[in-house]
């Protein structure tokens, strides 16, 4: 158990270093991906890529704890595009949402927000595409 905890901490430290060192990493095939750390131990990820004339937006929250209820929302140029409630599942204790958005003329600013109403922890990631 202690070994696992140390490994997780090491991974978190590496992730933090990666995010701090490369805040705007570019994914393959024109995708743009952002990762970040929420208020506590939870991580977030936002990925935006072209999809058949539209934007495919993926938002992910990884809290390492199963069964947490999170409220999430996706914002497009400051306007709420989608929202909902999800529960973390699986061995990683995470959830992921995926939505298509209309690719507007010029730069699209897409923000993924998630909040755990129980703990009050909030995640917020933004991608400009």
């Amino acid at each position: 158990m202690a070994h696992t905890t140390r490994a997780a901490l090491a991974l978190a430290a590496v992730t933090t270093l990666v995010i701090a060192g490369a805040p705007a990493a570019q994914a393959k095939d024109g995708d743009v991906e952002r990762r970040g750390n929420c208020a506590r131990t939870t991580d977030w990820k936002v990925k935006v890529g072209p999809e058949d004339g539209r934007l495919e937006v993926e938002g992910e929250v990884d809290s390492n704890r199963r069964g947490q209820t999170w409220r999430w929302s996706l914002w497009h140029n400051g306007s709420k595009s989608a929202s909902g409630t999800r529960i973390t599942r699986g061995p990683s204790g995470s959830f992921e949402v995926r939505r298509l958005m209309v690719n507007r003329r010029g730069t699209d600013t897409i923000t993924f927000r998630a909040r755990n109403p129980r703990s009050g922890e909030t995640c917020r990631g933004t991608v400009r595409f």
Partner: protein
Amino acid sequence: MRYAKNPVAQFLAAGLVVLVVVVIGTLELSRRAAADEAINDARSITELLARSVAEPEIPRGLVNGDPGAVDRFDRAVLRRVLVGDVQRIKIWRADGRIVYSDQTELIGDTFPLGEDQREVLQRGASDADISDLRRPENRFEQGSGGLLEVYTRIESPEGQPLLFEVYFSASDIAQRRQEVYDAFQPIALGGLLVLVAVTTPLLWALTRRLERTSRDRTRLLEVAADASENERRRIARDLHDGVVQDLAGTSFALSATMRDPGTDAALAQRLEPMAASLRSSLRSLRSLLVEIYPPDLDVEGLNAALNDLVAPAAGSGVEPVVEVYDVEGASDDSIRLVWRVAQEAVRNTLRHSRAQHLTVQVGRNGDRLTLDVTDDGQGFVDGHSANGSDGSGGLGLRSLRDLIAEAGGRLDVRSTPGEGTTVHMEVAR
């Protein structure tokens, strides 16, 4: 040629012409109806998509271009409206701004609306038109091979009228039109063909009956003519063998008596006018015999028979001329017809025309045997002959006309008051 006179052939020919005209007309109407039906289908689809899919899903803010509202609407309706023949969707504001399109590059662009589109925005209902692919709002449709745009009015949750426009592929519309058209064809063509199929046997049966009646009538005419001819022959033979022989014997006896030296001169002088009268009566009787039944009625004997026929004309103050040429090879039936018509025409001339000259000409016109009986008599107005008949040349000629027609010939009677009459007959040789 024989088929051209057949009523069934005439009906089928006329029916075929009518059928072609009706079929062309029907198919053209069907084509238009099919086109209208296809466009109406497109309008129905458009109105259904507008009322049932698009309008209920329009979120607040869409009319103002709110990006989140556009996203929500796009996710909600895209797969539900791009169905079947639908190629493109556009939703317009009244000021010409496109607030939504499945072609997202168009969202936010503004183009001037057409008059028809503005009218639909104001009055509702729907309209359809062929897309002008040269217009900038249709720049993404190049190479689509033609589009039909159908538009109708919807409303945003804010109560703002919007124009919901659906683009259909012209080829799909054409295919739909063809489907409707194909459905029309069996009805249009089948009905006409059934009509022809039903009426043709009926007409054929009716024609057969008419032909049979006509043949019976002709046969009756022929029988009547043959009977008349036989009767004439019998009478002529009886007269020739009986009365004529007796009168000839009496005439010879009188002549012999007058030339007998033993006969008293005064008696012989009184017998002379009797003998002359007897000879005259004998000549008249022989002419009558020729008229009743001419001997040697064939090509060789026709000239002599016609001369015998016109012989009494001199006694009526009419100068007759008979010309017969190029009749060799003519059939006996044709010669008999020529004789009968000439007999009737000459009889009419002598009885009614008050002519001074009478010409009977028999000749040839190609493969036809011709007869012209011409006089310079008083003539008559067409339709009112001097003998009180109907102007067709007298009852006798009129009754002969059917026989001539049956033999493939024709009979014309031409007359002008004061300028005489011509009876012209042609018959196959």
